Each structure stands twice: as structure tokens, then as C-alpha cells.
């Protein structure tokens, strides 16, 4: 167990380093200086390079940059908010919290909606509920997130006027409804599909038959015996789900005009503000990698079969 956790931590750190090095070299691969524009003289560029430490050898720059990140120094913005520290832009202006709040709510919604739907479908296998849910979830995983967001916007924002069209800074609880639903739509359909498949797998197992023969109540069989075992694939999906929520957040924030980190990231990409792009990429990558690490370790804890199988190898 400890060995496995250590191995995963080492891989996570290596991945993080790889991401940092990739982003560094990608940024440096861009031809021309970031300070280059029509007005700048060679002297000005040299001064600016010296100011931001860009005149040193690449390997020293990489070292400074990596150590900087360890100390929480991500450099300063070049264009979007000139000379403001990137760490302040990301964490200090409420962008990060806004995005995290929407993301966490939609994660919760996806799990809370997806798992019961999957159970419902599996339990009513072959009946109309199952057929309906199967068609619905199959469609659900084929509809892109921005379409869901836009449809919600048309129906509830524009036609019915139930919810505010522009969510802005998410000041009221009703402003959360559409972004969270739009973000949770795909994952809840996916989780429902996963849960249904693994529930059906579990229901056909011998121990369920035994539980039935013993005369246990249906509810107890489902929740105590079937569900616990069928949740393992859902847990493994939580890692990719986090990544999906972050990238989905870009779309949802753009669509609903939420001034979160995702929207800011996209505009910094369009404006080519490299330090911001790099800083955001690394923060989000760290989030995803840590989540993957946690999921892998939890997965190992809740499913003892896996360690048994590994021991046999």
C-alpha cells in the first residue's frame, strides 16, 4: 500500500515537472521577444529582457522559473493586467474561488444525480424507465457542453425568463443554476451509464443471489451489497471528471459570462499573455494531477481485489 502510494506520488511529481518543463520550453519556442512591438527599440527590448531575467541562458531561466513556482512566484502579467503578479491575478481576485465553486457544485450534482439514475435503470432493467434513461444518457454523452449551456440559456433564460441570462459574479443562488447544470450534464449522464453497467454486473453475482435467498429487502440488497461494489468504476472516473469539469468550465464561463479563471484563461490565450497562460496551466494541471493521485490511492483502498491481483503477478 505504502509502496504503491509512493510510486503514484513519484509519478505525479514527475508529471508535474514534465508539465512545467513542457510549458517552459513551449513558451520559449515562440519566436521573438514578448516585448516586441512596433515602437520598441533594441535597447528597450534588452532592458525589458534584463528586467524579467530573459537575458540569462535558458537552463538558468528554467531553474529560476521552477524555483519561482516553488516559492509561489509566477512572474507578472505582460499584457492583460500589466506588471500585476500572476499569482495575485489567479488567486487574489476571486477568479479561482468563483471557478472552483461552480466546479465543485457541478461535481456534486453529477454524482448525486448520476448514481441514483444508474441504479434506477439497472433495477428496472428492460422496463420503460431503463429504456428511457438509456436513450437519454446515450444522447447526453453525445451533446457537446456548449450546446447544453446554450439550450439552457435559450429555454430558461430567454424564453421563460426564470433565471438570469448573464450570471456575472454569481451574486445570487439562482445565478448558479444554469452554469452548474450545464457543467454537470455530461458527467451525470456518463456516471449514470457507468453505474448502470456495473450495477448489472454486480446484480448477476453470486453474493447478490445469496442475499436474495436469505430474504433481505430489495433496498438493502441494492444499497448495501450491489451499489458498494459497483461504485468502483465511478470512483475511477472522478479523476478524468475533474479534468473535464475544468475544461468544461472554460466553455460554461465563456457562455454565461462568468468572470472566472476559465474565461480569463481563454482571453489570456487569445491575448497571448504568456506568464498568465503558463501560470494558469500549471495551477490547473496541478489540480488535475493531485485529483488523479487521490483517486488512484482511494481506489486502491476501497478495492482490495486490486492489490490481490497485483500480488499474484
Amino acid at each position, binding site marked *: 500500500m505504502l509502496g504503491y502510494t509512493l510510486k503514484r506520488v513519484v*509519478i*505525479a511529481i*514527475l*508529471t508535474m515537472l*514534465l*508539465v512545467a518543463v*513542457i*510549458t517552459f520550453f*513551449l*513558451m520559449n*519556442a*515562440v*519566436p*521573438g521577444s514578448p516585448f516586441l512591438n512596433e515602437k520598441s527599440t533594441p535597447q528597450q527590448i534588452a532592458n525589458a529582457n534584463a528586467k524579467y531575467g530573459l537575458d540569462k541562458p535558458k537552463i538558468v531561466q528554467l531553474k529560476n522559473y521552477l524555483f519561482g513556482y516553488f516559492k509561489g512566484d509566477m512572474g507578472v502579467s505582460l499584457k492583460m493586467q500589466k506588471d500585476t503578479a500572476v499569482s495575485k491575478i489567479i488567486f487574489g481576485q476571486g477568479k479561482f474561488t468563483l471557478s472552483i465553486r461552480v466546479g465543485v457544485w457541478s461535481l456534486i450534482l453529477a454524482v448525486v444525480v448520476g448514481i441514483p439514475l444508474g441504479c434506477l435503470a439497472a433495477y428496472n432493467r428492460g422496463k420503460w424507465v431503463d429504456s428511457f434513461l438509456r436513450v437519454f444518457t*446515450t*444522447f447526453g*454523452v*453525445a*451533446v*457537446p*457542453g*456548449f*450546446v447544453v449551456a*446554450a*439550450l439552457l*440559456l*435559450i429555454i430558461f433564460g*430567454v424564453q421563460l425568463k426564470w433565471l438570469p*441570462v448573464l450570471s456575472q459574479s454569481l451574486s445570487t443562488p439562482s445565478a448558479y443554476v444554469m452554469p452548474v447544470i450545464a457543467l454537470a450534464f455530461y458527467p451525470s449522464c456518463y456516471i449514470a451509464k457507468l453505474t448502470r453497467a456495473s450495477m448489472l454486473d454486480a446484480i448477476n453475482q453470486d453474493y447478490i443471489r445469496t442475499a436474495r435467498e436469505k430474504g433481505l429487502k430489495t433496498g438493502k440488497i441494492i444499497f448495501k451489497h450491489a451499489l458498494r461494489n459497483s461504485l468502483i468504476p465511478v470512483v475511477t472516473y472522478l479523476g478524468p471528471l475533474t*479534468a473535464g469539469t*475544468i*475544461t468544461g468550465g*472554460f*466553455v460554461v464561463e*465563456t*457562455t454565461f459570462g462568468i468572470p472566472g479563471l476559465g474565461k480569463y*484563461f*481563454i482571453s489570456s*490565450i*487569445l491575448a*497571448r499573455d504568456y506568464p498568465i*497562460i503558463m501560470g494558469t*496551466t500549471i495551477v*490547473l*494541471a496541478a489540480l*488535475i*494531477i493531485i485529483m*488523479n493521485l487521490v483517486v488512484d490511492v482511494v481506489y486502491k483502498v476501497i478495492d482490495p481485489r486490486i492489490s490481490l491481483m497485483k500480488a499474484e503477478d
Partner: protein
Amino acid sequence: MDINKKNFNLFQLNTELVPKLDEMSDSDFEPASKDEKKSMVEMRRSVSYWADAHRRFRANKVSMVALYVFIFMLLFTFVGPSLIPYNYSDQYRDELKLGPFQYSEQEQRVRSLLKDNDAVYATTLIPGSLTSISAGDYYITYKRVTYAFHIDSTLADSVIILNTAAQDPLTVVTDKALKAGKSDAKALASTSAPAEGAVKLKAITYVFPHVFGTDSVGRDLMARCMYGGRVSLIVGIIAALIVLIIGATYGAVAGLAGGVTDFIMMRIVDIIYSVPDVLIVLLLQVILKDPLQKWFDTFSSTNAFVRTLSDLGVGIVSIFITFALLYWVGMSRIIRGQVLQLKQQEYVTAANALGVPNRRIIKRHLLPNCVGQLVITTCLQIPSAIFLESFLSFLGLGVSAPMASLGSLCSDALDTITIYPYRLLFPAVILTILVLSLNLIGDGLRDALDPRLKK
């Protein structure tokens, strides 16, 4: 199943056929003739892997419907643009912001003219257009007869040249005269030989509607959806092929090599697998833009391959690069797992003993036996690539204007979503149908090709 049962019955003694002991004659003890032997041996006709898979896929109704829908989408996106008279980049200035099947004022005028006449002629191909004609030589071919004529001075107003059954040869009618209700049509001189450099006028016999309407700059939305769908499909298929080639090779090499090589190769895969792909895609989109553009500009005039790439645009090529860098790991894991099983087989040992080089073992023995997995994974890779491309285009990073993709069409529609919701609906529905049908075909292929699911 029932064939097997028949075979099984052969081994049981059919008591009715066995003669009773006292009824036996000498002839019963003669050796069986060839025909008799043949009737006793009942062989099951061997069914090849593909025939079996084909039969099972055909039996899967959902996947068959998905396949037909997908074929329809292929026709829609690849043949469709040549069937409609509109182009994805042409802007029809008189036809801005039309709804589905709505005709512009001018088109309505032409339609009402067409009601009374055989055909309307204009200088351009755009259906339903009325053109002002400048001075010069013109000719028209109508019903296999060529009419040539000369116009002295510019007819400043809109001019329609029309032909009716009664008025032959052709007549020039100015739009002003028509609107005033005058019938002072001027007869044209007709000769059979057009003057040198004469402009050919195009006949309009039917005003083709804008089925999906037009956008804010007067581009036909259906044509754009067709081209957009084509771009999405091309991106999906090429990206899936890239993943197939890299992933299958990498996985097969790792699996066959085994030992330390396998360990190192798979740890690399582990690390790449946990790199957040979309973030790197976004990053690459930014980074690659300038260098790729420069590369395109220098080589596209000399190299046909580069020219094709530059037609697709920087955004799409960087999607390909990302797939080549990051997305092959899933495929390589699956293929490695398969190869680990397959390499224990006797035929691989035999090939090894005969001194067949590893390259050839992979090419001739290992990969052909993974073909089911290869087909399934590749097929399911296409919709995920389409998703990624539409995601990037939606954020404004994929295709560049005037090229359209389904994602960029959705993103364009978002600005005017409150007034023209159908502009989002059409590309979104097409995108959904594409992804859905590909997902269902992939599921059907999995059921058909995976021998472990055999009943």
C-alpha cells in the same frame, strides 16, 4: 447452435435406423459406399472472423440505423456542397439574416417572375439574383440555341432577361419597367455565334431556398454546416488514424519487447496519460500558430502536402500534432495488453524459431490479430476528436475564418442566440448526430468484433 446439436446427434445411436438382428442380411455388412459416407459426415461450413462479425453487426438494429445515419451524414457533408448552389464563404449582400426557407425580397421578385416565364437570366450563378448589366457583348444558351446580343449603354437599373413560351427570342426587361407595370420589353437581336469575349449569362429556372437560413453577413447556413461537418469529420478521421498508427506501433513494440524496455515505455505512457491533455492542447494552439504559419508560407508553394495542410489551417494542424503527442497512449495500452497475450501463442514462437525479424512478427502476426481492438478503439476515437475540435473552435482557437467548423458555427451563433436560436440549433444538431452515430457504431463494432462477448 442448431448445427452443433445436429453434429452431436450423430454420435447417438438412432435406434430406428439400426436393423433388428433377425432382419439382417449379408448386404448390411458390405463396406459403406462413398455417398453413404458423405451423408454421415456433416461439416459445419467454416465462418470467417469477418463474416461472423458482419453477421452480428447486421443483427444489431441500433448500430445499423446509426450506420445508415452516418452514411447519410457523409453524403450530406461531402456530396451535399456540390448539390446546392451556395458556397460556404460567399456573402450574398441582399440576403442577410434570413430564416430557414425564407426568401429575400429580390428572390421573391424572381420567384414571381418565374411563375409567368420559363427562365430568368442573370450574369452570376447566384439563384434569385437580379443583376445590372454593363455595356458589352453577352450570349445565352437556351434550349440548345445560342442567342448573342449587344448592350450599348449601361442599364443602370436591375435587368432581367427573360424568356417566355410566347416571346421568342429572348427579351430584356428592366426591373423599373416591371415595377411600373409597363410591358415595353425590348426584343433582342439573335444570332447563333457569340462575339469574342462575350459574357455568358446563367439561366435560373428555380430559386433554391436557404434551407437553414443565412447569417449576419449573408452566408448560406446550410452550406456552412456542410463544410463545417466535413471539417469536423476530416479532423476526427485523421486524428484517429494518427492515434492508430502511433499507438498501435508503440504498444506492440512495448508488448513484444517486454522486460526493462516495456517497463520504461509504459512508465512514459503513464506520465503522458496523466498530463492534462486539454491544457496542453490550448497551449499548443497558441505556441504553434506563428511557426506553423511561417512554415506554411515558405513551403506551401513548392510542397503539395504542406499546401493541403495549410488549406486546413493552423488550428487544425495543431490539433493533429496534439493527438500525435498525447492521445495515442490509450491505444498503446490496449494493444500492449493484447500483444502480451498473443506473444505466448505457438505461431509467434514458431515465427521466432524460424528467425523472422521482430518487425515482421509485429506486422504479420501480432497486429492482424489485434484488428478487432484496433477497429473499435479507432472508431471510438473519432467522436472524441470531433468533440475536441468543436470545443477548441467554440473557444475561438480551432479553424480560422472564413473556414467553418461545427464548433465555430455554434460559437458564432451564440452572439445572436436570443434573436436567431436556429443558427445554433442546426450545427449543434448535426454535431450531436455525428457524435451519437459514431458512438453507436463503435458500440456495435465492439459487440461484433470482440470475441469475448460471443454468445
